[in-house]
């Protein structure tokens, strides 16, 4: 039993919630989607742009807790330069990390593992997975041709 009340809030999470790297909008994009958690009002809006079969740019506007904001931002790091198939594999692995507490060795979740502690907080799972749901929707978004 850790007595550190803040063990969930790893330094990487705190860094990214205070100074996200991917915050903002893309002026040119080919997909966007909103993730919304009606239980708490957390909201993230994602914009993506593809080039050569890979994700070339991503930006998010997130209005929510530290977990949602950091999850959106770390997701940005993780998916840039990846193919859709690679992104879906990452999404599956990350969602498994949150829901079961473990993830397969591949794909490499890298910094996303900083969010692994969320597994212990069932009421917060959605905070971590919300950006990934939005990303799945953005990848399917056909409205920007």
């Amino acid at each position, binding site marked *: *039993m850790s007595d550190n*009340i*803040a063990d*969930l*809030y790893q330094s990487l999470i*705190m860094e990214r919630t205070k100074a996200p790297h991917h915050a903002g909008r893309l002026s040119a994009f080919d997909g966007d989607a909103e993730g919304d958690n009606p*239980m*708490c*009002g*957390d909201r993230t809006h994602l914009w993506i742009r593809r080039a050569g079969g890979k994700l070339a740019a991503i930006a998010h506007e997130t*209005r*929510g*807790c*530290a*977990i949602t904001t950091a999850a959106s931002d770390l997701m940005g790091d993780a998916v840039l330069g990846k193919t859709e198939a690679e992104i879906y594999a990452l999404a599956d692995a990350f969602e498994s990390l949150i829901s079961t507490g473990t993830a397969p060795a591949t794909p490499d979740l890298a910094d996303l593992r900083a969010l692994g502690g969320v597994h212990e*907080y069932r009421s*917060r799972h959605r*905070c971590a997975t919300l950006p990934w749901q939005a990303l799945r929707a953005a990848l399917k978004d056909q409205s920007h041709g």
Partner: protein
Amino acid sequence: MSDVLHAPTLDIEKIRADFPILGQLVHNKKLVFLDSAASAQKPRVVIDAMVNAMETQYANVHRGLHWMSERTSDAYEGARDKVAALLNARDRSEIIFTRNATESLNLVAHSFGRTHIKPGQAVLISQMEHHANIVPWHMLRDAHGITLRIARITDAGEIDMDDVEAKLADGNVALLSITHMSNVLGTYTPAARLAALAHRYGAKILLDGSQAVVHRAVDVQALDADFYVFSGHKLYGPSGIGVLWARREILDSMPPFMGGGDMIDRVSYERSTWAKPPFRFEAGTPAILEAIGLGAAIDYVSAIGFDAIAAHERDLTEHGIAVLSAIEGLHILGAAQDRGGVISFTLDGVHAHDVATLLDKQGIAVRAGHHCAEPLMGRLGVDSTARASFALYTTRGEIDALAAGLRRVKQVFG
């Protein structure tokens, strides 16, 4: 406050010993439960009443021609008498058992709404309603063609009485449906004045007493109300039991909400005729054990007395506002003159969910989010808040623990 000096006091340690759960540890820390406005903990007498009924005296009600059924019917109907006394209802037949305040509101919207509110007429609510007093009216509007009007609140979180009057003034409002105490801001609404105003313009008034009934004595006759709803689980009773009170003459004029057993006079294959209130509105086997539990909860709070409960909670609320206001970057929502033991707040730079998680790790339970009052959050210009709510078992020490816990939250987010 001079009126507090002479108020009866609670033996808080004795009361806390009545609630077995308060001795539990959470994350290895002593539980500090500050989420009673969502659902209150249960005293031993409520737990025992329900267990005892199951162990010694249980059968279906109103049907069996046998000893067990008769005794259980007596206990169930006895609970109705206790609710009638709690609200000072004119008659026990004015008490309808439902699942919760939400079901009571839906019952009124469905039954009264479709027969007594004409398409084009309006229901007036306020900006600080729980979703339970918004969504049923949206559904009635969409199905039946009523209109919905929203009375403003002031920046202090009080009802804007001028706006209420302005929105009643054309005489086209059939029902003013309004909270008696806000679950977000803690504001008590001036229920008797609102009732007088509604009646002056030909409207009925429904008071959502889900919060208010827990903290103060309620007298529906003195308020001159037409409908009053609340949930048992916030009043130290079990979940699954709620109450609708309405004037008998109104209930007599209302059709059933649901059909089934126990609510009929006669049934043939072709048609049914309805039983009189309250049974007309209690289709099927009711929540027998939960009604018995609610009856025990009412006995419990009545024995303590609402004068003592109200004085204790007033003291807690004043203390809570004082110690929380002293935290830099903390903002309390609402500043109503007349408020109960609910304090919603935001903390600069920390989302309410992170506040709640970090407090939980210290054993402190608060609610975070929009508190089923999303439109109110918009009106107040916030996405979500944390909320500490007090009950008769809450201590000043627990509020101090909250303040200390919040200072640690600030350190983490430093």
